[in-house]
């Protein structure tokens, strides 16, 4: 594999089989993710961006879904390796955060247990070591009073805090790849910018590659070096963010860009 390439997806096709007629939702999806880069994946809802992301994270159930193509990570095809091998990568090398931090956290478990869980699954650390690690990561995601937060339940936290907890859980194993599926959509605008800044900081400090999925083009513009635009299951355009934004080739991309509100969010995020 080429130098610095972490993940290579080629010809990914996803088909659903829970209806009488099989339904394809993703066609010929290609993606290369290099160490430490942030790649944006944009498109309206139903365009297949979340499906592709879930497939990469190994979270599409195998029964009613057919996947073709390859997802190469570390010389292994994630689509054909065993469940056990996949599990040893999930939450360890590749982790994921989701759109709704409230429902994505287990309502009846304390924050500490939820953040600590990947350590229990993937490491042999003892109790104190795990505690130290959890405390460290909670500080790193800039939660105030982490000792208190870890004893709380998800419903006792604000939306922004919950997403920070999700990020802490995803980052605790220092994964190579973080897949962020619309992580700010459910949050207020001010919290949004904080979370985006946090993701940027973690990316800079830890060299974690981020696949950032969003329907918000201005966010993607401010965060990502490269971008892929999806429509109806196809990637219609891809390239460096600046190039795609300044000189869109596809009619659809032009429309998406034209739909961005006039206030320049790029400046809001970059200059703060």
């Amino acid at each position, binding site marked *: 594999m080429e130098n610095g390439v972490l993940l290579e997806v080629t010809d990914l096709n996803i088909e659903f089989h829970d209806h009488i007629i099989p339904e394809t939702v993703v066609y010929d999806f290609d993606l290369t993710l290099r160490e430490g880069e942030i790649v944006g994946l944009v498109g309206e809802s139903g365009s297949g961006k979340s499906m592709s992301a879930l497939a990469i994270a190994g*979270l599409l159930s195998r029964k009613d879904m057919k996947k073709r193509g390859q997802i190469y990570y570390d010389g292994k095809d994630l689509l054909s390796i065993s469940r056990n091998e996949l*599990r040893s990568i999930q939450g360890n090398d590749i982790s*994921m955060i989701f759109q709704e931090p409230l*429902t994505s956290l287990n309502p009846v478990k304390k924050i500490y247990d939820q953040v600590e869980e990947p350590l229990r*699954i*993937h490491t042999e650390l003892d109790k104190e070591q795990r505690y130290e690690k959890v405390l460290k990561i909670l500080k790193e995601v800039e939660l105030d009073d982490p000792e208190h937060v870890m004893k709380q*339940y998800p419903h006792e936290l604000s939306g922004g805090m919950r997403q920070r907890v*999700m990020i802490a*859980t*995803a980052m605790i194993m220092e994964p190579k790849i973080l897949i962020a599926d619309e992580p700010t959509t459910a949050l207020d605008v001010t919290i949004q910018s904080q979370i985006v800044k946090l993701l940027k900081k973690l990316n800079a400090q830890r060299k974690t590659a981020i696949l950032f999925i969003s329907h918000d083009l201005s966010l993607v513009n401010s965060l990502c070096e490269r971008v892929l635009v999806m429509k109806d299951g196809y990637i219609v355009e891809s390239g460096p963010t600046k190039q795609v934004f300044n000189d869109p080739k596809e009619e659809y991309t032009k429309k998406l860009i034209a739909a961005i509100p006039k206030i320049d969010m790029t400046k809001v995020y970059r200059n703060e």
Partner: protein
Amino acid sequence: MRYALKKIVTMMITVIVVTLFVYIAFNLISGDPAISMLGTNATPERLNALREEMHLNDPVLIRYFRWLFALIRGDLGVSYSYKIGVSDMIMDKIPVTATMAVMAFVLMVVISIPLGIHTSKYQGGVIDRVIIILNQIIMSIPPFFSGILITFIFGRVLKLFTPGGYVSYSTDPAGFLWYMFFPSLAIALPKATMAVKLLRGSLVSEYNMDYVRTAYSKGNTTNGVIYKHMLKNAILPVITFLGMALTDIIAGSIIVEQVFGIPGLGRILLSSISNRDYPVVMAIIVIICCMVLVVNMLVDIIYSLVDPRISFEDK
């Protein structure tokens, strides 16, 4: 803590309403206890003397509170038919019925939880389908009929126990438990099927929750996701059901005792109903209701312990 206290207070109020209801119902409809005790051809003088003695001429509320305080002290009144203290009549029967109820409850939990987990995990599999069909059928069997079937199969055909036989818990505890096992099974089976159905449904709907996806994304195995994440969420509606089921089990034991010929509270209750022995009926009904209320309160408290959101909303 405040939540538990609030629940206890609510329970006390309900106890008072229940006992008042029972007391007034029996006093309004049951007629004159003096006549019940002495018979219809007693002389008016003797009846009046007895009424005075039993304070029957006092207002009903005063009599109620006198009865309630006596009840709390453990004085349940005197049986019309046997002229002995009600508490002497029923005290040694309570452990019989209680053992049967507890045993049935344990059986129900032990049967339903593993089956509920298994069927939800292998949805659409052979075992799942068989269980769904069996469930629907067993659910339709009244407990006394399942008792008759169990007597027939285990008692008559397999000869594992003597139908109609019984040994007291004071003479042979092991034998007593053995004789309690089959009636308990008869009560537990229909309830267990409902619990399986509920737990399966509850778990199946949990599979679609976002937090389950998160749990998988951490590298959990399916069993890890089920036992460490889903079960605690899915068990919440089941806890409420188990509480209600325990109520039904206590009531169901009255009937199943008749099938298996077990001398528990149910047998005395029924003979007292046909003898119109009201103090006994009242006492047993109040005791069973109190058992039920305590169970309900415990369920509420357990629920709040399992679900952190409850006590939070209460604050």
